[in-house]
């Protein structure tokens, strides 16, 4: 704000002084705050709240000063159009971040619980705490990407990096849409389809189950309780599962058997995630939401390449080999082996 009047002409000295004064006062408050906390090993909640109140008091004129600066920027003739536009965008972004911070600050100073998607970075409103952070301990913040993978081999068909930290169940349908877009590109016959979806208790949602059943997908792989899913259901149980989902005409008992066997298994999913983490997916290194999307996407593609190498070389677990047999996915190197023998 102090830079705008400097660049726009010498008539706005009052605004420059006000902005500089505000900056100095803020520095004083923050210096005192850091000094009292240093070396203590823990945070004094009262002190944090007191500092927040001081900052809120100090920051009251920022909105009015911002309007003045904006008017000044609009009238500035010394700046070129592109520079003015760039400054205007940066200034609007800064004012919008300030509004966000001011909105959630009074809640904290009054000891109220903060809303779900609390702001942790004024320059990127799309990141959120990925743990339930409290004001007296550090909390991780970042993204929570979702993946849709094949439980047998670990091949990832789709991934999604959402804004903030939304409810896990909200990820499922967009991920399935992405898988469908990949399926639409396949021209080989018979047409491939998704038969079932598995997930942890986090996606155990009645509305989601209904939506999946409406798409003709079995949801037996999503547990309803902490009890493990029965991998070998009896014919009566299979019948009941199909009746409950209303999919008697769309899904066969054999598909239900496979879906039960492919039910959610923490070690299986962890192995897929571990492969991504080994390729650097555990920490966002690129800037912003777009950067996170590119990083995760490239990591998924690199992981898929390695998975395809494993499949081609038959370096799969016994479980994966069995599933591939049951799904009719035969190794493609039969002729090659015969040629070698001959």
């Amino acid at each position: 704000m102090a830079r705008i009047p400097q660049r726009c002409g010498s008539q706005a000295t009052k605004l420059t002084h006000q902005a500089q004064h505000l900056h100095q006062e803020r520095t004083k408050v923050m210096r005192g705050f850091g000094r009292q906390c240093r070396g203590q090993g823990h945070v004094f909640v009262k002190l944090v709240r007191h500092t927040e109140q001081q900052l809120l008091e100090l920051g009251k004129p920022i909105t009015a000063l911002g309007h003045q600066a904006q008017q000044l920027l609009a009238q500035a003739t010394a700046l070129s159009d592109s520079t003015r536009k760039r400054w205007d965008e940066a200034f609007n972004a800064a004012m919008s971040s300030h509004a966000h911070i001011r909105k959630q600050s009074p809640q904290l100073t009054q000891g109220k619980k903060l809303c779900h998607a609390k702001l942790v970075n004024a320059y990127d409103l799309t990141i959120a705490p990925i743990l339930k952070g409290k004001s007296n301990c550090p909390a991780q913040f970042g993204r929570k990407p979702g993946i849709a993978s094949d439980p047998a081999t670990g091949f990832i068909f789709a991934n999604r990096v959402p804004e903030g930290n939304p409810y896990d169940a909200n990820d499922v349908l967009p991920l399935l849409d992405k898988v469908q877009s990949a399926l639409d590109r396949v021209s080989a016959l018979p047409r491939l389809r998704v038969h079932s979806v598995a997930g942890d208790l986090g996606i155990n949602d009645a509305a989601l189950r209904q939506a999946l059943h409406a798409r003709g997908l079995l949801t037996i792989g999503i547990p309803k309780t902490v009890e493990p899913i029965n991998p070998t259901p009896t014919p009566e149980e299979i019948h009941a599962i199909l009746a409950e989902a209303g999919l008697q005409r769309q899904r066969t008992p054999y598909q239900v058997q496979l879906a039960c066997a492919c039910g959610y298994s923490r070690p299986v999913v962890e192995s897929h995630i571990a492969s991504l983490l080994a390729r650097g997916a555990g920490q966002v290194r690129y800037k912003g939401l777009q950067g996170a999307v590119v990083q995760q996407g490239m990591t998924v593609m690199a992981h898929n390449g390695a998975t395809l190498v494993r499949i081609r070389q038959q370096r799969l677990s016994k479980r994966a080999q069995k599933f591939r047999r049951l799904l009719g996915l035969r190794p493609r190197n039969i002729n090659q082996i015969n040629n070698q023998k001959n």
Partner: protein
Amino acid sequence: MRLLRYLQHWVSGTGLPLHVADFVPDTDPIRQWADTFPWTALVAAIEHRFAQRFPKRSPRGRAPIPVRVLLALELLKHEVGASDEAICHRFRTDFAVMDACGLQEYQAPRSQGHFVLPETLCEFRGRIDEVLMDELIAIQAAAAMETGLVSPAHLVIDTFPCEQGSQRVTDATTLYKAQKKPSN
């Protein structure tokens, strides 16, 4: 696609060109990994998207670095866990990386430090948006399904945390960081 024609402004050495593929055995892990990608379809998708988003206004200027090279470098970066600088350096010296990037012949003077600068890789990455990234993954998945290697019949869906940093979630911290950044 003859990449060498486009790489002429970097690969400008004299003498007999070396055939990169001859130096990389079939069993090399990077070669096997690179052979799984449907490069033609991926490159076509990127070129189409870039042409839509960043139309070329003038025919003048130096020929761009091939998308095939940049995409392969970006993917390799994640596969081998290298930094931008490290992977660009390996592209200059490592035959397996050159082969994965589709470079067929090698003929460069010793004084040439890089074939691709890390900044170029960063700029390429900045042009990729979410729509394109989803399309690339869909192309890879479709190619794998087409060859009968994988099936999406039964899917497992899960999320995992991806950390950007950690801080005390107080507004004082947020405000402090926000105000500190522009002053730097």
